[in-house]
């Protein structure tokens, strides 16, 4: 088995799946699940020594440690999500074409991660974009798929421009060769770097390119949102790693202006990513809808990843890789849980939910691990990654970005625990009494995801050793070090197992108090009295209702980037209108007039 045959068979299974699902719709989900699980098994067993397979023209594969890491990540997301959505009875999910698009998106992503040259990478990138666009289009809204496609296209055209600029300047499309040649002859190197990183930022949803995320995540079919948020948006990080490893800013802008030891451009981009963290956090706090909240939190988390990549130290790159995995696992879990909730209750608005932990305790536990990891608390993987990134920021004395990271972490407690408590804690709404625990398939997939989040959080050494291998394969001179069970930091080592132990002791004490103390009496939500205010619906009792109302006035004054995009679109519309009015009128005389005017102008220009 090799990479080419893996991808080709995924594509073919997708097409076959479409036809089978047309005959028997329920089989579609099984095919998507089986194919992605088989791919997972294959990639796990084959390891990064899996051969790329024969070259099929431009389409050549080469499995690198970095590519393998990303591939494993995305297959893990796709296969667990496949298991989780087996029982889904959603309309969109039952569409025969969904199976095909799902597997196409997976196969194309695997193509991106193992592509040997930029053209092959771009081709698979675009296939991933349009197949996921159509998959989002199967959902409920109008806006999501179009804004996702529009922004993705902006990103991919930036990338195409950079690829062709490299190809025409250096006569090569080979990934490493093109970038390293650019480093030696930095003609268009700056342009290439900016465009490539821009396209990564679009995919990761970094400000000001984040606008596709909230509509796409909310409108995508519930079963597709985990794959999109956890898996596909990570494509951007892959190219960012490649570009900053082989074409580091310090390489082509070495001597010129430096801020805190970093080239000015790096520092500026790090600041942009920091701004994305702050902004994403502020916006997430404000949301009323759980999916939108997670979308903005993804914009913030993309910031951490980009900071880690741009810093370029061994710790920061490891931190970015770990954060990528942590965020993928956590968002996939969170969106899978939301999918279950939306399927049962029909809403993802936080104030319409509440108390679900009483009905689905196991789902709650999985969600809890995801949220803890997202916030960056031990013993979850998210803690390890934030620790690594903060360590390297601190060691470089980058105060502003470090402040942003800390702000984002504290802010994330505000929004992440809010989603946890508004959805799962508090009192159950009367109409939700009949809710049921998630199906075994969902629980299995949640168990795998949370198990990975917690397992790797407690014992990160193996993972760190692999990120060190990736760093070595990218040609970094220093790699992150582990010592036994702990990771070597700059001002101390991280022993996650020790932390877990401390955590457990705390848990035991808390448990003892909980079990010893007298129990509180359960009161029905509406079984209460009000003082002065008449509360007639369960929503009004919910503290999530209008949670951010006091902040709204502050937010209103913030400049909104989506207004810029809207203005651009309406500008294009106006131009179109003008063109139609001037040049496409139904009056033949106007045409004749234009012909004469242009003729006169052209001949005048010629004679002059």
């Amino acid at each position, binding site marked *: 088995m090799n990479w080419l045959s893996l991808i080709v068979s995924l594509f073919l299974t997708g097409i076959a799946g479409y036809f089978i699902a047309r005959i028997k719709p329920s089989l579609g989900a099984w095919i998507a699940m089986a194919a992605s699980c088989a791919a997972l098994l294959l990639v796990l067993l084959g390891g990064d020594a899996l051969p790329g397979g024969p070259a099929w*023209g*431009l*389409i050549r594969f080469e499995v690198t440690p970095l590519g393998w890491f990303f591939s494993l990540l995305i297959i893990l997301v796709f296969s667990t999500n496949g298991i989780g959505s087996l029982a889904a009875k959603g309309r969109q999910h039952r569409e025969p074409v969904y199976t095909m698009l799902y597997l196409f998106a997976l196969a194309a992503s695997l193509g991106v991660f193992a592509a040997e*040259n930029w*053209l092959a990478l*771009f*081709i*698979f990138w*675009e*296939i991933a974009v*349009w197949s996921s*666009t*159509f998959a989002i*289009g199967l959902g409920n809204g*109008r806006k999501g*798929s*179009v804004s996702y*496609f*529009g922004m993705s*296209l*902006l990103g991919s*055209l930036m990338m*195409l*421009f950079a690829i*062709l*600029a490299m*190809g*025409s300047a250096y*006569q090569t*499309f080979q990934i490493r060769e093109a970038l390293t040649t650019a480093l030696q002859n930095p003609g268009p190197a700056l*342009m290439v770097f900016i465009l490539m990183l821009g396209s990564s930022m679009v995919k990761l949803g970094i400000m000001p390119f984040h606008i596709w995320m909230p509509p796409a995540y909310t409108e995508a079919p519930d079963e597709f949102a985990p794959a999109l948020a956890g898996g596909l948006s990570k494509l951007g990080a892959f190219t960012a790693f490649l570009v900053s490893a082989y074409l580091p800013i310090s390489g082509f802008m070495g001597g010129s202006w430096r801020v805190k030891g970093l080239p000015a451009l790096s520092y500026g981009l790090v600041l942009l990513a920091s701004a994305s963290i702050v902004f994403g956090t502020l916006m997430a706090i404000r949301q009323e809808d759980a999916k939108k909240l997670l979308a903005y939190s993804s914009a913030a988390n993309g910031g951490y990843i980009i900071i880690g990549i741009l810093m370029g130290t061994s710790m920061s790159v490891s931190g970015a890789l770990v954060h990528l995995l942590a965020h993928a696992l956590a968002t996939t879990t969170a969106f899978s849980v939301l999918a279950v909730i939306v399927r049962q209750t029909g809403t993802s608005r936080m104030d319409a939910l509440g108390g679900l932990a009483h009905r689905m305790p196991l789902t709650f536990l999985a969600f809890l691990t995801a949220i803890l990891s997202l916030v960056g608390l031990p013993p979850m993987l998210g803690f390890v990654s934030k620790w690594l990134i903060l360590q390297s920021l601190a060691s470089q004395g980058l105060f502003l970005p470090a402040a942003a990271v800390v702000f984002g972490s504290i802010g994330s407690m505000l929004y992440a625990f809010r989603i946890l408590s508004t959805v799962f804690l508090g009192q159950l709404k009367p109409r939700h009494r009949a809710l049921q625990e998630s199906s075994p398939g969902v629980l299995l997939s949640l168990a795998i995801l949370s198990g990975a989040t917690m397992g790797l959080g407690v014992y990160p050494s193996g993972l760190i050793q692999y990120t060190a291998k990736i760093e070595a394969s990218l040609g970094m001179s220093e790699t992150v070090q582990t010592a036994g069970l702990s990771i070597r930091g700059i001002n101390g080592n991280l022993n996650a197992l020790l932390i877990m132990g401390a955590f457990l002791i705390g848990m035991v004490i808390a448990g003892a108090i909980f079990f010893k103390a007298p129990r509180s009496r359960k009161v029905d939500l509406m079984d209460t009295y009000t003082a002065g205010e008449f509360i007639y619906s369960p929503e009004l009792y919910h503290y999530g209702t209008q949670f951010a109302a006091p902040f709204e006035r502050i937010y209103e004054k913030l400049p909104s980037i989506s207004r810029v995009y809207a203005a651009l*679109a309406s500008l*294009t*519309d*106006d*131009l*179109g*209108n003008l*063109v*139609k009015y*001037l*040049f*496409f*009128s*139904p*009056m*033949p005389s*106007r*045409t*004749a007039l*234009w*012909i004469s005017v*242009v*003729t006169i102008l*052209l*001949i005048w*220009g*010629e*004679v002059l």
Partner: protein
Amino acid sequence: MMNLNPVLTIALPLILAFTKIMYRRIANLFLIVGSLINIFVVMFLKEGQYLMGGYRPPFGIILQVDTYALYSLLVLNVLFAALMLLVTKKAENLTSSSLIALAALNGLILTGDLFNLFVFLEIATIAALILVSSIKKYHQAFNYMVAGAIGSTFYLLGLGLLYKQYGTLNMARMHELMAASPSGSAVAVILIFIGLAVEIKLMPFSSWAAGVLKNADEWIGPMIGAIYGGVMMIVVGRLFTDIFVMDAKVRLMLSLLTLITLVGGEAAAFQSRKVREVLLYSGVAQAGLEALLILNGYPAIGFILVLSNMTAKYVMFLLAGYMAEEAGGDDFDRLTGVFRSNPVHGFAFTVAGLSLAGLPLFFGFIVKLNLLYNLMLSHSYWLPALILSASLVEGIYMLRMILGLWRLPEGHRGGLQVRILGSSHRRKYAVYTISMVLSLALILFGLAPDNALSIARRARGADTDGKPLVLITMKGGIGQ
């Protein structure tokens, strides 16, 4: 191997057009058989020059079959015959004009004489006018007539000036003379360009196209929007690559016109909310791009761009015509979800649209890739950036339209219950077959484009203006 005379592709349809008058009852048959025989003839054409009436050039009229003409003829005749297979009651009255149109279009591609080209241009325009009047929008047909008349007058005027200066109408001879002393010919070349700009729908000369194509049915849309536009662009490719010699200033001025067309057309398409309107304005924009490439010394890329756009537009106009007919209009809101009940049509339309927008897996992507790469090789970054911005706009409106046509409308569970062509079985399967074959061809050429690319290179030379044509192929990567 048989070697047929290319004049057959012109004479046969003409003869059939006039004999048909005597056999009205089997007019359909004439049309189908005539266009199918033409494909057959084209397949057995050999490259070379064919003298008419035994006069040696530059005195006599010659027909010139080179790779360029040969593959243009092939695509033209196949697309034309496919359209004829969909012949309806309405088209029966148009048999003669369709056959005449075919003869004239073949002639336009083949002729090696500039005045002969004018004659074919006139015949083609008049035939098109009759075809267009079948949609019963007489005001629009009248517009078309006026614009066409102005266009051919300009062409004739320019040609007269050239004849006065150089004393020949033969294309090859004209090129020799012009290359030797190009000064003073600029005004004539500008006039000829404007004359043809009307036909290839460059702004601001293309208001007729909006009127005609907005209301086009499944017959007129592919005919005028795809076939006519494509053939006229092939003529422009012939004249402005092989024959006329322009100085840099004229080239720049004309390029400016094409750039305005590209930008304006995309903006107008972005603003449109009706399927055929989107297609027609995007066609205008594409014409701008094609002409830009031809004028600036990228004729090979221009050539495959013309052929790939022609095929994609053909499929889209065909299906748009049917959709509009069945649903009684073609605004997006009315057609929301139409592909749910017509998935095969939806597939073909989607493939054509994605190819037009230049997305990978489809032929359009390979063309766009090579186009941008060659522009960049000549160290121009502004033009590729502009073209990419235009294709960003194009991608957005194209996908917005396609997604809308697939999306389930609110409240409808099964999608819009408009069956495209539920009535007649023969037509239904003909449309299925044609749109599927053409869209699969776009995928096939997208996956294995190397042959098409090498044909384009052979057709339009590997070297124009000192810029080597470097093709990125699927098989070997970059190659000279």
